[in-house]
């Protein structure tokens, strides 16, 4: 398995539980109390830090399992990366646009921050899933 494929698996393996963990903390609160009373800042910061740190550690482990391959990539890797980023960026942009609309509508900070956060993490997951799929299936540029 190419190092960049492993790296994208790390994003999926780390990102899914991070997202589910965050939602498991926030959704019950959102269902049981007013939006303004939800304690979302600390869980969001914890989720972002955990996502970044676990990604770094996962990449270190992936590189350590096959050091010779860790710094290798070629045109196929770069093309797959470009396509995956383009797909993922749609969700990130959707989150940003949603945040913009929410800000214009003077929505609570909770909704604005969560639109950006969820768009970002969902975009990262979709991007990595697209890349992993491209590594396994046919990937043609022509």
């Amino acid at each position, binding site marked *: *398995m*190419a190092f960049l*494929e492993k790296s994208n698996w790390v994003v999926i393996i780390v990102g899914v539980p991070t997202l589910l963990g965050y939602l498991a903390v926030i959704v019950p609160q959102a269902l049981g109390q007013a939006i303004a009373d939800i304690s979302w800042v600390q869980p969001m910061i914890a989720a972002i830090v955990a996502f970044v740190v676990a990604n770094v550690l996962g990449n270190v482990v992936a590189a350590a399992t096959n050091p010779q*391959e860790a710094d*290798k*990539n*070629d*045109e*196929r*890797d770069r093309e797959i990366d470009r*396509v995956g980023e383009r797909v993922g960026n749609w969700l990130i942009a959707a989150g940003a646009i949603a945040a913009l609309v929410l800000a214009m509508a003077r929505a609570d900070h909770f909704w604005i921050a969560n639109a950006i956060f969820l768009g970002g993490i969902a975009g990262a997951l979709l991007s990595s899933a697209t890349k992993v799929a*491209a*590594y396994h*299936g*046919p*990937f*043609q*540029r*022509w």
Partner: protein
Amino acid sequence: MVKPTRVTNSIRSMRFANGEMTQAELADRVGVTRQTIIAIEQGKYSPTLEMAFRIARVFHVPLDGIFQYSDEQEASE
């Protein structure tokens, strides 16, 4: 992205005809990862023209000695 390629190749047979060259050895000589050679051999990836020339050069054959372009679908398009 997932449209099957009509470019076929004979890299696998050329490797065996050239001293049973491994995929890793070919990858090193072409300057790509072994996974890319595997993907090309399996028809999952069409290399760029430049990479195709580098592969052909390893085996000392012209480009169409390695890569072929099927025209089976052209009649239906």
